[in-house]
């Protein structure tokens, strides 16, 4: 697609019909695209264009609010007490305020991704030009940007085309943010609708960023055999100078790797990453290494393993420069979004910056040119490493015991620990020379450091935990599949039918951050359980790292044990946060490529298809961020349910169905227009699982869809029952709601099901061609 701004000005022209003077014609865009598909009903939807669809979902899945605060303090009328139905000075009540907070969180998340994508796009267009072609999978991918095509109606072909797409997302995010102002929206459901809208927009923004970087930076392109890259602190060669890149925007890391290669320093230094930057750095350069998820920041820096810290954007500890200073590691801030108080040295000569950082004259600098970041970082790290000599702030093991003796057992550490871990007991044991409880904490600690902030004795509790776990830390040497990006059209064709018919029991997308209730092993366990059951397992972000951080009995990581394709029993890593768009994209492509539903600007029909037919579930076991909220909202609008771990309750609002209300579960049969009760399939759009065990069962249950064939439903129910027996220790108590005909009953469970059906006055029903949209009914009954 190409587009131009056209302006025509005529000062004076004589024509047969008369004289024209000072004529000026301005046309915003001239669109010349090669996509022959007719435009659907909702290209570039405004905030209200899909409101009716949202209300259908919100009627089925009603918000359940759990306010984190009784007050609103967003304007000077406040603070306003909104407790139990009271209204604030602006008229808002607590339900509306809660939904407003949800919407704002989603808008922040979407803004974060779109701003990230905008920066990537600027950088890549500057380097490669607007006409640089998009290529996310060669001949294997013809639908290169399914989310973008669906939402905007644009088929992007070049980097320049993505510019127009981002203009749309930026406008929509601004519109949604405006709704958050005092004295705007007054309905909680309309706030919810706008949260869904900005979530949808978020996926467009993410897709733009990822397809731009895949195309221009030579990442793996929908490759099931993308390289296995090293993962874990133990994989880092500590004999070499180490550059640690933190964040999400790969451009500074690209500058570092390019400069290192140009100067043949790439064999002399280690480039390691933390959080999503790590994933994208390894997509660019498979010899880079992934330290681990966001929660590994403190342990890596305090252990003295980083000789230089480079910060780009998102999910960075905002005090990391202070931590780095304690171990003598200089910092380069490389994003306008977090300047960290450093002087902007972008336009200074590299020699001067290097000298200042190596000498310690300055603790850090702001450099907004990725190429200059590369030069400075590579030169500085090689000079600083011999000076630092792995300076650490971790105490010796003997000192741990001595320090622990200062603990007064006041429990402030535990009371400030997000996980409520029994830190006082570990300190007491450590004071007596037993470090085993501290070592146990190392495995599950999320590394936030709140324990230290709370300690009246100023004990560096986290450092004690890291020291006690140091041996295990240095043995973390695992493998992660490099982010492969999109799902190919061929893969979609291969699995489209068995997914939609239910014979592949589901797609489990395990995404997002590392605020896990009991460590990352849960993510590995969940992913492996469903891969063994031949679900399609898709991973991204910090979850993709955690999943790769454990090994089976044969010593294989998850990525070695299972194939990397979008296939039954496959375990694929799509990549970083922005790569989450490929998961939504895969769902959209099933509707478009397999089911041949029109794609262009046709959001509602595609979402209706996905919601009723595609057994996909998102799991953000450690979700913590506003970005995760936005990603979730994008899935909700597509009708895909999302589960979060227990900390996800702090998003303060669930979207939940009620299986005890049969009137909520009617769909239209597109063949006849008849209303058919299909049961709670899927039961929720957004829910918390309190434990791993509950989560296992919830995933299987939420994969059930109205469209399942009897064979597919039977397979899904067998997993649901088996997981329930195994992890809950009991048969499910709602099986009768999911059996439509007796053919749905798994053969090996016939007797158990018969008892359940008999006890619940079960009646047979039909399997409809399900839709929530009256316009999709082919022959409405008179």
């Amino acid at each position, binding site marked *: 697609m190409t587009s131009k701004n056209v302006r025509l000005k005529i000062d004076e022209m004589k024509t047969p019909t008369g004289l024209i003077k000072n004529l000026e014609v301005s046309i915003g865009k001239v669109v010349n695209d090669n996509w022959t598909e007719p435009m659907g009903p909702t290209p570039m939807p405004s905030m209200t264009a899909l409101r009716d669809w949202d209300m259908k979902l919100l009627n089925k899945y009603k918000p359940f609010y759990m306010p984190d605060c009784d007050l609103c303090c967003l304007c000077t009328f406040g603070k306003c007490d909104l407790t139990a139905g009271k209204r604030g000075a602006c008229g808002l009540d607590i339900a509306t305020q809660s939904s407003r907070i949800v919407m704002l969180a989603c808008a922040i998340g979407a803004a974060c991704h779109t701003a990230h994508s905008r920066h990537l796009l600027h950088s890549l267009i500057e380097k490669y030009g607007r006409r640089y072609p998009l290529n996310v999978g060669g001949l294997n991918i013809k639908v290169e940007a399914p989310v973008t095509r669906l939402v905007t109606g644009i088929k992007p072909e070049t980097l320049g085309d993505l510019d127009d797409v981002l203009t749309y997302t930026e406008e929509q995010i601004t519109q949604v943010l405006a709704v958050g102002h005092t004295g705007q929206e007054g309905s909680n459901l309309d706030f919810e609708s706008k949260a869904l809208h900005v979530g949808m927009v978020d996926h467009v923004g993410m897709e733009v960023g990822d397809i731009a970087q895949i195309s221009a930076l030579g990442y793996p392109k929908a490759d099931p055999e993308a390289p296995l890259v090293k993962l874990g602190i133990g994989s880092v060669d500590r004999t070499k100078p180490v550059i640690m890149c933190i964040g999400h925007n790969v451009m500074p890391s690209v500058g570092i790797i390019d400069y290192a290669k140009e100067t043949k320093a790439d064999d002399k230094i280690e480039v390691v990453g933390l959080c999503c930057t790590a994933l994208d750095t390894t997509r660019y350069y498979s010899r880079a290494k992934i330290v681990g998820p966001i929660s590994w920041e403190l342990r890596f820096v305090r252990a003295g393993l980083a000789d230089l810290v480079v910060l780009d954007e998102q999910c960075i500890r905002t005090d990391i420069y202070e931590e780095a200073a304690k171990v003598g590691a200089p910092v380069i801030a490389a994003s306008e979004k977090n300047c960290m108080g450093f002087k902007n040295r972008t336009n200074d000569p590299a020699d001067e910056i290097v000298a200042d950082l190596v000498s310690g004259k300055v603790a850090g600098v702001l450099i907004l040119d990725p190429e200059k970041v590369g030069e400075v970082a590579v030169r500085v790290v090689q000079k600083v490493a011999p000076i630092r000599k792995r300076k650490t702030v971790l105490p010796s093991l003997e000192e741990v015991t001595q320090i622990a003796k200062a603990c007064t057992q006041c429990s402030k550490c535990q009371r400030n620990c997000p996980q409520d871990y029994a830190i006082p007991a570990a300190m007491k044991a450590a004071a007596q020379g037993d470090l085993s409880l501290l070592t146990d904490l190392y495995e599950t600690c999320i590394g936030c450091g709140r324990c230290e902030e709370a300690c009246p004795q100023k004990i560096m509790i986290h450092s004690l935990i890291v020291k006690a776990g140091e041996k295990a830390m240095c043995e973390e040497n695992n493998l992660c599949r490099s982010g492969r990006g999109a799902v190919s059209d061929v893969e979609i064709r291969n699995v489209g039918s068995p997914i939609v018919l239910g014979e592949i029991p589901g797609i489990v997308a395990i995404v997002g951050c590392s605020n896990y209730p009991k460590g990352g092993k849960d993510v590995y366990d969940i992913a492996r359980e469903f891969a063994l059951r031949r679900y399609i397992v898709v991973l991204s972000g910090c979850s993709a790292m955690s999943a790769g951080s454990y090994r089976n009995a044969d010593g294989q990581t998850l990525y070695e044990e299972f194939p990397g394709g979008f296939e039954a029993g496959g375990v694929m890593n799509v990549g970083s946060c922005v790569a989450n768009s490929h998961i939504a994209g895969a769902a959209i492509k099933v509707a478009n490529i397999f089911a041949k539903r029109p794609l262009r600007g046709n959001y509602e029909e595609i979402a209706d298809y996905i919601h009723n037919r595609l057994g996909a579930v998102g799991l953000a076991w450690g979700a913590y961020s506003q970005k995760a909220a936005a990603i979730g909202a994008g899935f909700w609008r597509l009708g895909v349910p999302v589960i979060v771990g227990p900390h996800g309750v702090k998003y303060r609002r669930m979207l939940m169905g009620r299986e005890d209300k049969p009137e909520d579960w009617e769909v239209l049969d597109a063949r006849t227009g008849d209303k058919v009760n299909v049961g709670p399939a899927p039961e929720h759009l957004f829910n918390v699982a309190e434990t791993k065990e509950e989560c296992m069962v919830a995933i299987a249950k939420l994969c059930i869809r109205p469209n399942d064939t009897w064979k597919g439903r039977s397979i899904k129910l067998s997993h649901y029952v088996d997981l329930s027996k195994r992890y809950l*220790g009991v048969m499910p108590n709602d099986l009768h709601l999911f059996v439509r005909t007796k053919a749905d009953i798994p053969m090996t469970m016939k007797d158990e099901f018969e008892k359940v059906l008999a006890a619940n006055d079960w009646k047979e029903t039909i399997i409809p061609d399900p839709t929530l949209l009256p316009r999709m009914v082919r022959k409405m009954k008179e």
Partner: protein
Amino acid sequence: MSCEPWQCAEIASTKKANAIQKPEIAVAMIKKAQRPLLIVGSNATERYMEGKPLIDYMIDFANASKVPVVATAHMVGEFLKRGYQPASFMGAMDIGQRIVDPTWQGLDGKGHPDLILLVGLPYYVESLMLSGFKHFAPDLKTMTLDNLFHVHASWSFPNATLEEWAANLKVMTSKFNGGN
């Protein structure tokens, strides 16, 4: 025993729980309720007092008080293993959503509960559920049986040691068993 939220940051509340200073008061409240309901969460097998897990105390309490139990997370199997049949099992959010629905007629279909007891959920989960009840079921009474003060409940025990907690739960059970 302090009456500050166990997790220190959970303070953003204008309507605060009344502290239960003696277990006998809790027993009186429960006896006064027409339709109490007890929600037991996943920490029931994680937290121990005097060598016994919380779930054992709650089974004793439920047997004595006849308060019906909803087991959340994977606790149903733990109850069954111990020979106790909970009235129902479902996710914490599922039961929470039903509770804030004024039309919900309870597990038995005979009427909405008038007192919700909670115990053993992760602190932050329980805290937010209680907040949801406070705001969206304002006529409902809520009580936590944990040893951790919950500001959003109607009534909460203050922060207490494990020994004090065990003693409180045993007194409550004994009072329902006809003890003095």
